[in-house]
């Protein structure tokens, strides 16, 4: 299977087939990401199309030595942010059109968990939410997320650590289901704090 970067290089060279393959590979995850945050589901599709339209217009800016996926998610995140600025509201997790088919087979407990998680996501800060969504749902690495949101790796990890901690706190009494738990991200500032503490303790007479 050709890599994203090989496909993009082929597309820049004029291959429409490569573009179609890229779309089929990445549109589903981008669509899921958009649908999670947007109330109107048709707007999610529109933003995914806009994302690939931007990719097409910026194709000659693509650096083949860089990875495509973070670039694509950066375009998507920009479009999503612009959309929310335009409609003057912040993202809210939507379960519309998603939970119905699953409810019967997975049971009311799981549905409740999903709803509670959606509500918890609405309570974390916008920056923490972006990082959590990219990490937990879109399965990007922290290095990729740092590229997407334009922050340092440690800043991204701090956002993830604090965001997940808050969600864990909100959902403390809720069982998410077998095999599922809220990811644990170590506090990147913790080692520095413990080093400082050890330093201070070492100097204490």
């Amino acid at each position: 299977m050709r890599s994203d970067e090989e496909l993009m290089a082929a597309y820049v060279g004029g291959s429409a087939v490569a573009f179609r393959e890229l779309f089929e590979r990445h549109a589903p995850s981008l669509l899921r990401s958009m649908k999670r945050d947007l109330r109107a589901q048709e707007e999610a599709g529109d933003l995914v199309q806009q994302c690939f339209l931007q990719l097409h217009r910026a194709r000659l800016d693509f650096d083949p030595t860089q990875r495509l996926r973070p670039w694509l998610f950066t375009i998507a995140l920009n479009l999503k942010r612009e959309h929310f600025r335009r409609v003057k509201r912040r993202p809210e997790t939507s379960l519309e059109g998603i939970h119905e088919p699953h409810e019967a087979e997975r049971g009311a407990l799981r549905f409740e968990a999903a709803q509670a998680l959606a509500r918890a996501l609405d309570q974390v800060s916008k920056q923490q939410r972006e990082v959590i969504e990219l990490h937990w749902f879109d399965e990007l690495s922290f290095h990729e997320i740092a590229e997407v949101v334009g922050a340092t790796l440690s800043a991204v990890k701090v956002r993830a650590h604090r965001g997940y901690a808050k969600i864990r706190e909100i959902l403390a009494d809720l069982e998410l289901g077998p095999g599922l738990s809220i990811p644990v991200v170590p506090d990147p500032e913790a080692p520095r704090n413990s080093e400082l503490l050890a330093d201070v303790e070492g100097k204490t007479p």
Partner: protein
Amino acid sequence: MSQPGEEKPQTALPELTAPTSGAEVRHLLAGLEAQLEKEKGLRAWLRSRPTSVRFALALCVVGAVLALEIARSQRVTEVLQNWSILAGQTLLVVSGVSLYLRSGVLVSRSRLLFSGLLLLAAPFWVSLLVGRLGNSGHFEALASGLGCFAHGVFYSAPLALMLLLLDRHDRPASESLILRGAIIGVVGNLALIWHCPSTDLLHLFSGHAGLGVGWVLGWLLWRRVGQIHG
């Protein structure tokens, strides 16, 4: 792709990451391909150039506008004495165009901040001259200011067209429109420096310094009209 030593998160609740249907993706692809079919002509060609080429094209238009005005100017020696103001405003234009054409997550806030700087550049320049300025307070000064305003709009219009054509967004964000207007305003002001010898405060504020604000309001109005009709 995870980096070595980086733990992958466990899969989240499927209810929040529900798979999309193949039919839906195919429908979106068909719509997208129809949009790509329309990507033809000068605008499509210009906005799909690499950012470095778009940057060079925009600066060529700035250079051409200023060269034309300088060629027509009767007061080259006089203006060149204010070389630091010319250099400062040119630097602002170059940085503004670079920021305008760049995309990225952190860009939107920078665009607003920089637009503020650009919009203040002309009034700041006028303020620098305050000691040397007269203030007639006459209606004639305001009327001639409107003449200069129109002249500035005319001379900056080619850049306005070029920045519009180079923009990759069909629905540009407000920050982008504000920055676009502010850049054009500074270029119009640079052209007016060569054109107009007036030292009247009322004239300079109404006819020169207001140009950027005029362009910003114009672009925002243009978008609003487009939203109403489209």
